[in-house]
């Protein structure tokens, strides 16, 4: 087990290294750097000014050297201006006058994530604040999605081919066919519009005080989460994710229900409710567990779409802003986080699968 874990963690590190290099390469293409210089120093600067801006800010070195700087294995760049002041990658860490105290290397291995050019703040601050906001969103998504998906799947799978099964399976298929940008738009139009949908009706009946039932903008959820400003984003993500989990649960449940021990329990005269709850459920939930874990990275896509759609400034929104502005170090940090989420959930799903299913042993 220990060697299995060590090997997996080793593969994780290699994967993360490869991926960050790819991100680094793609964000540091000459054309992208030009865009960055123009967004930072003014959109109408000449090519010579672009080159000098890149040179002054340490972007003119070879790409591999700068990747090493970012990792913290190569000394950070330094530069002495004409008036004798020294600038450099690591200078922002200490007071500008105190050059002696500036560390030679500053990068990932030293725990320094760089500066965001879009938000003009250290990347670690930006990312940790935004991750907190997204963590809250994800927590509610999982709280809503997982029980709903499991209930739908188990109810559909316990009597294969019945009318309940047909109805619930169709619902599950329909939910997988509705991406977030569709369901979000439909939800807002139906529930959060002051001119059409449900809200004007409720206002005219005098049932609600404000102009709309739900808020179409989730920014106020940063201060205080209420049902009315958070329900729509959570439902939008949960709806797309739940269909797949429900279908896997249904498949797993129908398979379990045909097993010998279920037949034996039936012949003994155990009631149907008892068979489902006592005998079938535990075995039927092994497959969905791994799927739920693997679904979490997929939710990240939904998170980006929903946070942009509902303007909720979380991790997904930050990723969108970073990508739109070619904020290199923020984008790198975001991809490290995203890749870690993917790999850690994979690891948990593998371990959980073995743990839940005693027939499988890691050799």
């Amino acid at each position, binding site marked *: 087990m220990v060697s299995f874990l060590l090997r997996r963690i080793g*593969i994780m590190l290699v*994967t993360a290294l*490869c*991926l960050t290099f*790819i*991100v680094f390469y*793609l*964000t540091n*293409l000459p*054309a*992208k750097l*030009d*865009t960055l210089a123009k967004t930072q120093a003014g959109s109408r600067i000449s090519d010579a000014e672009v080159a000098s801006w890149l040179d002054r800010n340490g972007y003119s070195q070879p790409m591999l050297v700068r990747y090493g700087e970012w990792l913290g294995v190569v000394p950070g760049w330094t530069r002495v201006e004409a008036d004798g002041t020294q600038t450099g990658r690591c200078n922002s860490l200490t007071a500008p006058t105190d050059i002696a105290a500036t560390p030679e290397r500053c990068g990932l291995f030293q725990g320094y994530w760089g500066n965001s050019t879009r938000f003009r703040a250290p990347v670690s601050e930006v990312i940790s604040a935004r991750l907190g906001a997204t963590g809250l969103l994800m927590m509610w998504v999982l709280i809503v999605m997982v029980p709903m998906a499991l209930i739908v799947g188990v109810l559909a799978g316990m009597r294969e081919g019945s009318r309940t099964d047909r109805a619930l*399976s*169709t619902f599950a*298929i*329909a939910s*997988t*066919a*509705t*991406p977030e*940008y*569709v369901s979000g*738009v*439909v939800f*807002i*139009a139906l529930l*959060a*519009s*002051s*001119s*059409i*949908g449900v809200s004007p009706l409720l206002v005219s009946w005098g049932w609600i005080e404000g102009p*709309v039932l739900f808020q*179409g903008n989730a920014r106020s959820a940063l201060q205080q989460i209420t049902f009315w400003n958070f329900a729509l984003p959570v439902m939008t993500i949960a709806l797309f994710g739940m269909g797949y989990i429900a279908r896997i649960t249904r498949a797993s449940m129908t398979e379990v229900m045909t097993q010998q021990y279920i037949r034996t329990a039936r012949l003994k005269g155990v009631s149907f409710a008892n068979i489902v709850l006592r005998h079938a459920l535990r075995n039927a939930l092994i497959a969905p567990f791994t799927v739920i874990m693997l679904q979490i*990275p997929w939710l*990240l*896509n939904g998170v*980006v*779409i929903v946070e*942009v*759609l509902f303007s909720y400034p979380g991790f997904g929104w930050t*990723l*969108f802003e970073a*990508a*739109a502005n070619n904020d290199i170090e923020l*984008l790198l940090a*975001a*991809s490290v986080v*995203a*890749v870690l989420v*993917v*790999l850690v959930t994979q690891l948990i799903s593998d371990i959980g699968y073995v743990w839940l299913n005693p027939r499988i042993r890691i050799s």
Partner: protein
Amino acid sequence: MIDPLGWPAILGHLFLQLWPVWAGLVVLFALSLTYKRRLGLYGKLFDSTVGMIGFALVMFWVFAALFADMIITHDPLGQFSGMRNAAPGTPLRDPAGGFEYFLLGGDALARDVFSRMVMGAREVLRIAPFAAMISFMIGISLGLPAGYIGGKLDTVLTFIANLVLAFPVILLFFLLVAPEIQNTAIPRVMAGILFLMPVLFFTVLLNARFFTQPMKRNLYVGAVLVLGLWAYSGLAFNADPLGVWGMSPNLLNVFVAVVFVNAPTVFRIVRGITLDLKSRDYVAAAQTRGEGPWYVMLWEILPNARGPLIVDFCLRIGYTTILLGTLGFFGLGVAPESPDWGSTINQGRRLLTVYPHAALAPALALMSLVLGLNLLADGLREESLKD
């Protein structure tokens, strides 16, 4: 001034306007139901209600895309005075002999939502099935040897596939589909590698089968090479001497990104099935006969894996449609003014709470197409499990 239409009249006009689609569907279903016993798996689809509903939804959009020129009521890119954010059923101020109403209203730039929605089907169906097809050929050509031969090859290919899959799709899109990237060699190089796969696939496929009959082999493989390399030169490098095949840099960029995201998943599925099937008796029989590894993979294992692959193919077209919508939603890689559904939703969402029709129409269109593909896949799965 003519009065605006009410909803029953709007629906009536829509129904009439879509007549080529209804005609196409009626003919197709009549023919298919008549001859369904002779049509193999396709015919069996008509035994399952779910499958038929899904197929009808998919074909609705296929016909809509095919006959789009006859269906649209106005120029999808044209702007009409006084029609900005017009409600569904608003009459035009100056129809000038054309159609008198905006059936589903106007968008923020005073263009007809209905015509844009119909034209959007063409945009989507031009890319999604082909991107899914290329992804499948790549997944199959790499997944079969990875599962069948195994060893180092399997380790390397699986690592690369997992690497791509560990990327969040949206991040990859933001990195790969950008105006700056289009001007570099990256999309061309990727297209050069990805589009070569189908040519190799068919060459190896036919060579493995016919290499004992050199005459036939030379004919078939030669034809594939001529046609394939011709299309390849045009699609990947825009260097087709006759100018038949070609793709705008925008489209190529989107295509490559979508294929790149889809292929690793297909690879994993094919590899899994191959690992399962390679211990079967018919594989052992072929090996004993002395068949080569490519023959066994492509003519023994692949045909027996077709059931799950066909089902996944339908799902993958749906998923590709969703991905294309995502790209449009973030305004990536689409031509300005393009009527594709994703970017129409994106443009419509700014005024969503006041004028929702501009975003709702393409949103529901996209959902119905993907739903149709998913139902079709479900029907196919059910029917293929029956034998």
